[in-house]
């Protein structure tokens, strides 16, 4: 799993941005989504990402697994993520 070829990621104070430079679309990321993309860039697999996000964020509602699954599916659907 990796960012698509023409997708650039940059961290910002508010979280981060993904920039799909072929379609020239920009996606803003909140801190949690930024953490997921940071892990993807570092080469982590989905299981490792889930664990690391649970270490970083409060998972009282048990939503982390669901949110990560949805985010990754969304990134794939938008052509931002491959593999």
């Amino acid at each position, binding site marked *: 799993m990796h960012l698509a070829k023409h997708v650039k990621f940059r961290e910002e104070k508010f979280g981060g941005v993904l920039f799909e430079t072929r379609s020239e679309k920009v996606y*803003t990321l909140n801190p949690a989504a930024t953490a997921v993309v940071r892990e993807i860039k570092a080469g982590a697999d989905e299981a490792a990402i889930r664990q690391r996000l649970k270490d970083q964020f409060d998972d009282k509602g048990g939503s982390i697994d669901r949110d990560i699954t949805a985010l990754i599916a969304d990134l794939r659907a938008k052509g931002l993520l491959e593999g």
Partner: protein
Amino acid sequence: MSESIATAIPASTPASTESGDLGAPLYVAWQITNECNLACLHCIEESGPGKAFKDELDDRQVFDVLAQLMDADVPYLSFSGGEPMVHPRFFDMVEYACSRGAELKIETNGHYLTPENCARLKALGVKAVQVSLDGASRETFNRMRVLGEFNVAVDGVRNLREAGVPIEVNYSPTRFNVHEIGAAVDLAYALGAISFYTGKTMYTGNAVKTWHKMAPSDEQYGPYFATLHAKADEYRGRMRVHFHEMGLLEELRYRLHHPAALLILLPNGLVKLINALPFVCGDLRQQSLKQIWANFQDAWRDPRVAGFVEDLAVDPGKTRTLHQWVHL
């Protein structure tokens, strides 16, 4: 988690991505020289042979600026001009930017796109090359692109395709080429373009002198954009057809409140707020990119900027003064 991850990514474009919260621009459009081999009737930069600025950045300054852009993680750059490929360090600049991971677009008139140069651009990894093809025929293209040759530009695009470089086409409308817009979109697709860009020609630069014989009428723009709507539908999924129908005044009024995350860098290191305004918000010969970016938001709020935009409502011809830079 206090905030859902999955709902965190609304889409926008660089042009609609506001700059306020970002640590650096997302896009820098750099006119690397004002020198050009052509002298086009409509050129908004008044470029042409012998038109390089006297104070264009020297080698050390060019690579210092490039290093700052890459250190700031600016993800997307374009090199334009003038004609960027006449810059003596053009390929060195391309190599540096691409090697540092930038997505780089070249905006060219296509006259230097030899097979060798296209192969080199491919090897260096440019994102795309955008070629100005303002006509579907030699007659209209050559009339508009003084000193230019349609067949050379078309051959250049073919060389890009042969080399495997992604191709974009730009089209500036005039009263004598608007009727060819449909054929021009078809030609772009046939040549392998992935994107086609056009909008209204602006009254500035060389266009001020040629407006009376070049500017399309409102009656011509109607069918022009109608054709583009139809072509956008026809090529959907195969080639993106981008066009801006919005008038300049409407666009600038929006920008006053929503500055894009974009810097316009001139050949001499001055940084403009946007191409369609005369305001300069920094000088990379004297200030760092970081300082200029920090000033960028305030510069947009300068009352002279809003004043200029509202003056355009009364006198649209005020765009003729865009090259009389106003330092904020």
